[in-house]
């Protein structure tokens, strides 16, 4: 193949991908417009925050991290969960997962884009962001866990973009990708997926100032909850794809995903139970945060309804998925996955960040609920993530479908 033709092929690939991601029926176009509207709302809210400072959020010197960092933490987990599809499909050569692994990888990209955007909007001085870059700024590595997190998240993003891009490009040209070229990176990305979520947990776990976070179970529990929430989201996405596109998902895939979710969710619940036991069997000074979260403290009980909702729907979702009374029918599978997803989002988002900071080191208790700016920016970022996933997933599925139907089986 000459240099010129490969360049032409690349240009063809890019134009086709762009065309496919933007074209679609009226419903698809409306969906994209809706996402753009929400992104605009986010941009507007961010401009307000830009103008007036983080004072427009409801964060304070006591609750110094809020809704943004809560969502960041949760979404890193969703990104890491792609490994639950990558591991069986590339290493164990599982056919059912291999069929949908691209969807998991695209979800990981979307989740990473969202989580990094959440960190960005949380910065007090985003213009000075270059101060953190290695070489031109000062990168406090290996001392600061935040620098570790920046490192692992960016590398994971690159891995998750380049492996599928290479495979899709080969499939687009109707050739088999060369495993020697991508398998080493798949191995790295598997370790990396565990890494991103463990290090995000270490961000909190490594702070003796915050007894609620300074807990060795944090890392493993992050992984377990992520491997339940992530595949739950992917299941929902698969059902949508199965029902709205020509790309059909085998029944077996749903069943295997369900098993992964159930096992992870049960491990997560066991660890949750263990934490709750530790906090309340013999409550110490360090249990005040847990008391604040589960029962309220000094009349501040804004988190109480949230955490009990989270735990209830967590348990209901897990039971529904474990006993599977609907036999994988979407009518029951979908609500169960959504319940589990939302439950973990509450518990690992706002239910993890705020009690870590309250009571303050001076023993002061305050309430926190996100302001309209925080909620609007979060909605905007959510729309951005969905937009990224849609833009990438649509051409990817077209290429995969074409490749599979042209391949003699």
């Amino acid at each position, binding site marked *: 193949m000459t240099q010129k033709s490969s360049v032409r092929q690349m240009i063809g690939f890019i134009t086709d991908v762009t065309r496919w991601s933007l074209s679609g029926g009226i419903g698809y176009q409306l969906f994209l417009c809706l996402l753009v509207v929400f992104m605009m709302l986010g941009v507007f809210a961010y401009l307000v925050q830009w103008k007036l400072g983080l004072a427009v959020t409801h964060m304070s*010197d006591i609750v*110094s991290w809020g809704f943004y960092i809560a969502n960041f933490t949760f979404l890193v987990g969703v990104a890491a969960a792609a490994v639950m599809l990558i591991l069986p499909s590339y290493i164990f050569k599982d056919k059912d997962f291999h069929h949908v692994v691209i969807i998991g990888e695209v979800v990981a990209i979307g989740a990473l884009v969202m989580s990094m955007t959440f*960190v960005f909007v949380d*910065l*007090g001085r985003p213009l000075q962001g270059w101060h953190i870059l290695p070489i031109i700024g000062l*990168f406090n590595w290996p001392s600061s866990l935040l*620098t570790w997190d920046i490192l692992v998240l960016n590398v994971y993003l690159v891995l998750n973009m380049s492996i599928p891009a290479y495979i899709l490009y080969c499939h687009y040209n109707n050739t088999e990708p060369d495993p020697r070229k991508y398998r080493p990176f798949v191995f790295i990305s598997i370790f990396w997926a565990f890494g991103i979520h463990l290090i995000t947990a270490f961000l909190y776990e490594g*702070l003796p100032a915050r007894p609620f976070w300074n807990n060795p179970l944090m890392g493993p529990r992050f992984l377990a909850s992520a491997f339940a929430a992530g595949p739950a989201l992917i299941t929902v996405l698969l059902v949508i794809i199965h029902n709205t596109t020509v790309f059909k998902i085998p029944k077996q895939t749903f069943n295997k995903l369900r098993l992964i979710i159930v096992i992870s969710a049960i491990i997560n619940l066991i660890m949750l139970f263990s934490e709750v036991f530790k906090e309340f069997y013999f409550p110490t000074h360090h249990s005040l945060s847990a008391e604040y979260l589960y029962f309220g403290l000094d009349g501040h009980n804004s988190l109480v309804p949230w955490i009990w909702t989270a735990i209830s729907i967590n348990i209901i979702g897990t039971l529904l998925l474990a006993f599977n009374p609907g036999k994988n029918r979407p009518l029951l599978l979908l609500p169960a996955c959504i319940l589990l997803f939302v439950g973990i989002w509450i518990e690992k988002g706002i239910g993890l960040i705020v009690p870590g*900071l309250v009571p*303050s080191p001076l023993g002061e208790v305050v309430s926190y609920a996100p302001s309209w700016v925080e909620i609007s920016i979060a909605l905007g970022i959510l729309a951005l993530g969905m937009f990224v996933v849609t833009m990438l997933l649509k051409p990817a599925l077209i290429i995969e479908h074409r490749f599979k139907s042209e391949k003699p089986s």
Partner: protein
Amino acid sequence: MGFLKNKSCRQQITDEHRPCQDSGRREFLKKAVKAAAIGGTAVVTGCQAPGLLGSKEEFALQFQEYFKAHYRLMTEKERDATINRLERLAKLQKNVDVQISSKEAMPGVLFGYGFNVTRCEGYMECVSACVRENNLDRKSNTQYIRIFEMEPGQMTPDAGKGKFFNEVPVDGRFYMGAQCNHCDNAPCIKACPTKATYKEPDGIVVVDYDWCIGCRYCMAACPYYGRRFNWNEPVVPVKEITKKQHYLGNRQRRRGQMEKCTFCVQRTREGRLPACAEACPTGARIFGNLLDPKSEIRFVLENKKVFRWKEELGTDPKFWYFID
């Protein structure tokens, strides 16, 4: 009522403004000349309000400020240049003449602080002195020092009452202060992703305000609630600005930056006491050089019953509480 002695003092931090330190005839003349000059230009230019980005000069200065390095990595010349820019910006934006020092730590000095739990009576003169000296934001009512009213049996500030509006002192209660402990093994320094917060050779934990990106990880890492964030653009009435400043100390902060107690670096490196220690009417606040065997702080450490807060965390604070 004995109001003068027994103050319920949380609110009365900003009511008195300190007299201008170097006010004299010469200063007055200088100001008068400047005011005349400004007035003159205003007449000539039709007194235009500054544009969106301020004047052209202001924009140029801010542009150069954006690309400056971390304070520790600056050469002597770069430090002088940024200080000139900052002083000029203060003049352009607020029409105040500030003097920003870049005085280095003195050799053989390690600062330490002692808080006499027996003596403190909760007047909070320290709090208001600190607010004025360090140009703290009046809009959000930022305070580096917190005073807690304690019941007998309590021995750490977090157990006490941080919001009290009664006259002080109250019989049977005692008072404890909390502020940055200037830890020798500081969790905030370990957490900062850009090394914007670091320990100076004289043991002061400082923030290079202009290098901070505002991620607030240090705030989560601090077990003493020693750090404050500028959620809004800080506001200090021009009349009340303390003009003798230090680059690492009480100079103007901006929105989105972290700040904290610096043991009044602008004063202590000149051999003066921190504003809080100077203001304390009961002599409960002891400050000095830990490496000087004849210093008051060394006397306290050797002769009083001292303890440190959250010793179990291994942060090694240079802030001791003691009992007479």
